[in-house]
């Protein structure tokens, strides 16, 4: 297992390399040079200042060298300086990443907490009234884009009932900035993602369970005299989890995409929001960093999916 993980981790390196090169080139091709954007044109000796800044930022070096320098700095955590926020990029990323992670975890917990049990219940009582209702609802929820769900949730919970905040990652008052406060603010956006994701999970769970229920070993388990509950939890679910963990790993990666829209919509100060703000301000150092981090998320998601896959399926583990 250990060597398996190490091997997979090493396998990520070329991909990371390709992604950073691509991102670097993309940012380089972008119009509007960061230095022009940041300088007050009324400064005296402006050309000299520009030259100085080009020099200290290494913009006079050949492209490949600039990349190498960037990579060196990136690896040691020197992610550059945000021209828009006037702060080191890494200081911006830290809290944003924490917020996004919280959002992701809350969303995933909600998803799994409701999505899987509903799917399980459907699989235990297939073709029942509940099953049909749940299937239809989850099909609809799966089709309605999550940002529209988010608008509806804002409309209901933030505007009309006023029990959740409509935006932001933290609030005001004595609890401001505490974990509870963060959680409270993460709930509504998390719920928007979770509802759509739940639909995916119920469909997946139900499908996977029904498929496993038809398997011979399930019959064997019954034949051994195990109770239905035990058969479901120990035999069926363990096997149905195999496709589910793949989806779970996929979630980690795809969360990055969802986060951009939702954080934009909720003005939730996470990685997505930071990215949008930076794109709007052509703050390339920040975009570089967030892009690479999002890509790392996808890679890690795949890795986690593979590891979990190996954990739940011994056939993979021993091959």
């Amino acid at each position, binding site marked *: 297992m250990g060597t398996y993980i190490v091997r997979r981790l090493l396998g990520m390196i070329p*991909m990371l390399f*390709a*992604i950073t090169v*691509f991102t670097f080139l*993309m940012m380089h*091709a*972008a*119009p509007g040079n960061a230095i022009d954007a940041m300088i007050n044109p009324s400064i005296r000796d402006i050309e000299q200042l520009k030259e100085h800044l080009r020099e200290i930022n290494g913009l006079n070096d050949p492209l490949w060298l600039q990349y190498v320098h960037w990579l060196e700095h990136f690896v040691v955590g020197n992610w550059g300086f945000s021209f828009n926020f006037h702060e080191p990029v890494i200081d911006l990323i830290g809290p944003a990443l924490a917020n996004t992670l919280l959002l992701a975890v809350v969303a995933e917990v909600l998803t799994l907490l409701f999505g899987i049990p509903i799917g399980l219940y459907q699989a235990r009582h297939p073709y029942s009234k509940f099953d049909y209702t749940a*299937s239809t609802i989850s*099909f*609809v929820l*799966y*089709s*309605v*884009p999550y*940002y*529209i769900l988010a*608008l*509806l949730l*804002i*409309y209901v919970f*933030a*505007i*009309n009932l006023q029990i959740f905040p*409509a935006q932001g990652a933290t609030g005001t008052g004595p609890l401001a900035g505490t974990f509870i406060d963060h959680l409270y603010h993460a709930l509504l956006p998390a719920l928007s993602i979770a509802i759509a994701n739940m639909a995916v999970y119920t469909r997946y769970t139900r*499908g996977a369970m*029904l498929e496993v229920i038809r398997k011979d070993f399930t019959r064997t388990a019954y034949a051994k005299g195990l109770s239905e509950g035990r058969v479901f939890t120990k035999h069926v679910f363990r096997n149905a989890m195999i496709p589910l963990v793949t989806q779970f790993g996929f979630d980690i*990666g795809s969360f*990055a*995409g969802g986060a*951009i*829209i939702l954080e*934009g*919509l909720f003005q939730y100060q996470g990685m997505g929001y930071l*990215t*949008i703000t930076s*794109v*709007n301000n*052509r703050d390339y150092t920040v*975009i570089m960093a*967030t*892009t690479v981090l*999002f*890509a790392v*998320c*996808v*890679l890690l998601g*795949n890795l986690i999916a593979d590891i979990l896959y190996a954990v739940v399926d011994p056939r993979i583990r021993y091959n």
Partner: protein
Amino acid sequence: MSMAPAMQQPSPVAPEAEQANKGRVSKSPTRLALERFLHNRAAVASLIILLLIILSAVFAPFITHASPTLQDLANTDSPPSALHPLGTDSNGTDYFARDLWGGRADLLVGFLGTASLLIISLVLGGLAGYYGKWVDAVVMRLVDFMMNFPTLLLIIVLMAILNTSSLWLLILVIALTAWPGMTRFIRGLFLNLREADYVLSAKMVGASTWRIIFKHMVPNIMGPLVVNATLTMANLIALEAALAVIGFGVQPPQPSWGNILNGAQDIFTLQFKPWAWIPPAGLISLTILCINFIGDGLRDAFDPSFER
């Protein structure tokens, strides 16, 4: 293993085709699928609703005389009235007209985006699946690479860099970033077909690669391809709207459902002007729901053994 029969039967294609033409007695698989599809009530209803939505977008100028872009500062933010059934936005532009015309942008992104994506995927996936070996390896590395890139982020950054409001460019960018999933899917289908007897026999008679791919292989993956393309279309429409909601999709004044929503996200609009945001939100959701139902219906029709 299938060499010998191929030799004995030099032209296995022609009789097949002939049979298909003559054989009206036994129904063709496509026709069977169509019949099964027509029996799926949800799918047919969805198809009708979707057609209505498409028609209302295409014939928007005949449904309303109001312009979807004309600014009228004398009439901004007005509530619904006889003249403006859904009121006007903060430019004084008629919401109803924007909702109708807005469908054009979204549906275009859906259709053209899917079409261009299909072309890219058919070429790349087809080559990879057909040739295998190093071609496959190269294409799959490319797919892996693109898959590891958060598509949405890539589109946002590209759109920002290009600083454009061109719908065509948006479609192109979407197609150029969203192809890996479809390519992988098509490659899988081709990989399975590669060893099929009729493909091998076509190779034996010296058919060109493109002929084999488009004449022999593509028709045989039509079913899954159509299903997948349908679902892709739904995804692309959702994607455009998502981009527009945060200001990166179709740019105003050109209307799209997403950018109408973008202009209606503040609390007062949500609270006091449901006519501003419920129609575009509803149209996006309904369109996607319908397409998904149709996709579902198509899947059941093409693959009756598939059980939901």
